[in-house]
């Protein structure tokens, strides 16, 4: 007969044995920007800089933390259409960005079974897993896949206030677009997870865009369907409201600028295409200042101003990846990504033309926003995309009209159809 004391003792022993596993499950390491020692140094640096207003007068003191082109913008405010007070921003302390509960759980469940990319860069069980496929990435391709698996909350809805900016004439031409994004697979936030049950066509992700400006594109709508098969091109359909015609857009359009902007279709999120279209090289880490907790509503700008004022930047040790398109005739010769190791959003990118000359430098403004599942998600709330060859700029503000809706369970897959494109608006 086993005594009650023995049973209690055995249970205690088993619990102690299992404790590390349980603790490991809830605290799986999805990457941090700094080690404990590095963080001490960062906090020391912050004692000097946090709260300070940075402008042309003192940008040189922290220029190591920015791409060179960005420092040039702050130092030459008149060239970028700045108001009399110039261009400025503030420093704030580094804050760790946590992954959502769903992302952590999916990573814990699937990371160990994710197949290594083959010679073509394809993950064999790409559509069967979710979460962060490579919690400790070893190379550029794995970092790229971590970026690719950031599902923006499974479903996202936001509207962009996007002036196309000519700093020279200090004028804007407005573009205004509403976006819906939806994932069929690699879902981590909304049931069913990790994939929708009915998906005969093999869809991975879709984008639906409703354009309001420029005015000639009012109520023009478009959707892009991306397939799980990485070798299959996206299906893109445009309903041009002025002519009430549905047109299928060619793949070659991906490198053409979006109407009313200087961006190409591939530029969304700083890369919007199948991962295997590029070759990736990991270049190490770079400690930078990045806009990770920005409220776009607190920023200011005047017409023609190529960069908003009042942004907040914080230190973050970013992963540097060079992405070169496999198409030798691709419009860009090279992209350099600066990837947030905590959320795998690209926070900065430098873009070079096909002759290797520096051309553009884009930056994402991000923040941690509440999701409709009761969690918090690191999300892009704005983007700046200056062109340094033609001295031109563009801005996107995702908080101008309303706060982005993340992980809305009411968002459905049936909106990505031709019949929905023709819906009366």
């Amino acid at each position, binding site marked *: 007969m086993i005594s009650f004391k023995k049973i209690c003792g055995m249970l205690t022993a088993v619990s102690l044995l299992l404790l590390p596993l349980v603790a490991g499950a809830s605290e799986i390491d999805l990457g941090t920007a700094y080690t404990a020692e590095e963080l001490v140094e960062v906090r020391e640096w912050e004692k000097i800089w946090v709260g300070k207003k940075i402008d042309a007068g003192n940008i040189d003191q922290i220029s190591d933390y920015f791409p060179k082109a960005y420092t040039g913008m702050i130092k030459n405010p008149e060239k970028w259409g700045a108001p009399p007070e110039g261009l400025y921003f503030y420093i704030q302390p580094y804050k760790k960005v946590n992954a959502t509960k769903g992302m952590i759980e999916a990573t814990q469940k699937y990371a160990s079974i994710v197949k290594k990319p083959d010679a073509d860069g394809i993950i064999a069980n790409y559509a069967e897993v979710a979460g962060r496929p490579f919690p400790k990435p070893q190379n550029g391709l794995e970092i790229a896949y971590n970026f690719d698996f950031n599902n923006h909350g499974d479903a996202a809805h936001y509207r962009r206030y996007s002036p196309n900016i*000519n700093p020279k004439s200090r004028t804007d031409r407005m573009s205004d677009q509403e976006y819906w994004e939806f994932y069929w697979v690699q879902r981590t936030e909304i049931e069913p997870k990790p994939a929708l049950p009915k998906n005969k066509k093999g869809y991975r992700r879709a984008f639906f865009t409703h354009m*309001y400006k420029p005015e000639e594109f009012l109520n023009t709508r478009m959707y892009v369907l991306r397939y799980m098969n990485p070798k299959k091109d996206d299906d893109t359909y445009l309903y041009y409201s002025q002519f009430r015609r549905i047109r299928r857009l060619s*793949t070659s359009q991906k490198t053409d600028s979006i109407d009313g902007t200087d961006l190409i279709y591939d530029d969304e999120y700083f890369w919007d295409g199948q991962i295997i279209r590029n070759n990736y090289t990991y270049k190490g880490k770079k400690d930078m200042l990045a806009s990770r907790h920005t409220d776009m509503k607190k920023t200011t700008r005047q*017409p023609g101003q190529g960069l908003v004022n009042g942004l907040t930047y914080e230190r973050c040790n970013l992963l540097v990846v060079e992405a070169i398109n496999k198409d030798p005739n691709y419009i860009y010769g090279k992209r350099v990504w600066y990837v947030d190791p905590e959320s795998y959003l690209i926070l900065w990118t430098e873009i070079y033309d096909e002759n290797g000359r520096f051309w553009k430098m884009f930056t994402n403004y991000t923040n941690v926003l509440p999701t409709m599942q009761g969690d918090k998600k690191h999300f892009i709330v704005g983007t700046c995309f200056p062109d340094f060859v033609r001295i031109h700029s563009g801005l996107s503000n995702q908080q101008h009209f309303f706060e982005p809706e993340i992980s809305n369970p009411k968002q459905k897959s049936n909106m990505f159809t*031709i*019949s929905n494109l023709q819906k009366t608006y």
Partner: protein
Amino acid sequence: MKKKVLFLSTILTTTVLILLFTHHPARAMIELMDGKLKINGFIKETMYLRTQMQDREKHGPGGNHDSILDYANTAVMIEALYTLKDDDDMAVRLFGGLRWWWEKAPLYDDDLRRSIAHRDRKDYVHPRNFDDDMLTELYIDIQRGPWQIVIGKQIVQWGQLDVNRVADVVNPLDLRHGVPGVDAWEEIKQGIWMIRTFYQSELPGNLLFEFIFNPGDYRGTLLPYQSTHWGPRYFKNAQFKPGHEMGMFAWLHQKMNRDHHGWNLGENYEFGGRISGYTWDIDWTLLYWNHKSDGAVTADPAAVSALATQYVTAGLKSMFLGGSVNPGDWPSTRVFKYKRYQTIGGTAQTQIDWLRYTTWDLEWFYEIDTPLSKGERGSSQALYDEVRRDILGIAIKVSDRIRLPKWFNNTFRTQKKLEISLTYFWEKVFNHDHDLVLDDRKHRPRDNITDAVSLFLRQELWHTSWNLVFIGNYYFQVGHWMAVPVFTYVFPSDFLGGGMRVDIGAKFYGRQKHKIIGNDYDKKDSIILRLRYEF
């Protein structure tokens, strides 16, 4: 003095209209009632200045112009959408569109005013009928699950081409103030009262079924009025004056309009449908349309002769008696016929990766028993019979986006690719004979085939501030051609809310001299000036 007042009132009207609809620059449309009511539209001031004119048209005895201003049109379009319900189960929306215009060229130009028949001028200068002229669309749109039903006056777009109408067979055109190639299809199509239903199936190919029933709202093509910018010329004769300022075309045109059926539930119903799908990487549609012809496809030869004689007799009397002699009322008997026939057709669109990822469109129609007139040696001046024939038309369009050389992109400050599309159209009349009258279909006399090519180009310049659009076409058999380049300047967003555009362009028309079919637009080359405010 009167013209100065007119000029100032034009400026004032346009300004007031623009200011009336100028709103917060961040919004593209006016939203009211918590976004349930959305209003958008445009105000447009268009001028065509003739750079070419026949000597007989110019100012002087019998001339019909005392200036080069041939078209000065203020147009307003307002569209409103009211959402009654929009949730996961069902969406119910009400949509309406209204337009209004004021054509001022006949007010600025006395000779032009005197050249347009009185009745035509009244219709030309202002809209006169609410349903026919002002109400473009008015319908209720109900969506529930895979079903959608749209009831009311609607404009349907079944074609995808730039200039040719091949599969786009549902709505008749209104050519009184514009033509394809210069004006958008939407501005020159007439709405029809109809019931339209859709069913989005889950069958292979994502088949979308569409059915249309028009219970009897007949509308014919509205042809341009004689002596107006888009209409045939009227060369007045000092002695030959049948009626008050009315040319032969205007006389016949009035009768054509009177012979329209209008609403008739028993006779004028139209119906058809379309299936859309996606198979083997091809987006395709198949369509069927049972309808009455949009134009007067045949005419009773004896009745036409009597009608023409009535006009000529009045003219001859005026020559002998002096002054103007009224030809009298139009006869009540039907002269022009709008007959029923059927069209089947389809579209197909795909992308060919190995051909620079170009997009290819195929559109075709097969008209069954199309009514046609017969005239001696195919002349519409010597009609003697009417027959029915089948007609096949096919168009192939290739579209591409071409990256221009870097020096061009840097000089013109753009990274946008050149958008280009080229369309070839071919048409054949079966069981042809030499007396078939086919000149309105751009056939050479006694030829059963016609073909044409059209070109569309679009290039953004200086980032997004300028746009160049070019549309041109050439009909091989009759030698007619058109070329319309237009530059558009997009005003910055802080200027009146950002919806202001200025178009500066030109229209060139011509025909090869050795071809015998005349081109109505020949010698009508013009400068295009257009100011538009879109909201």
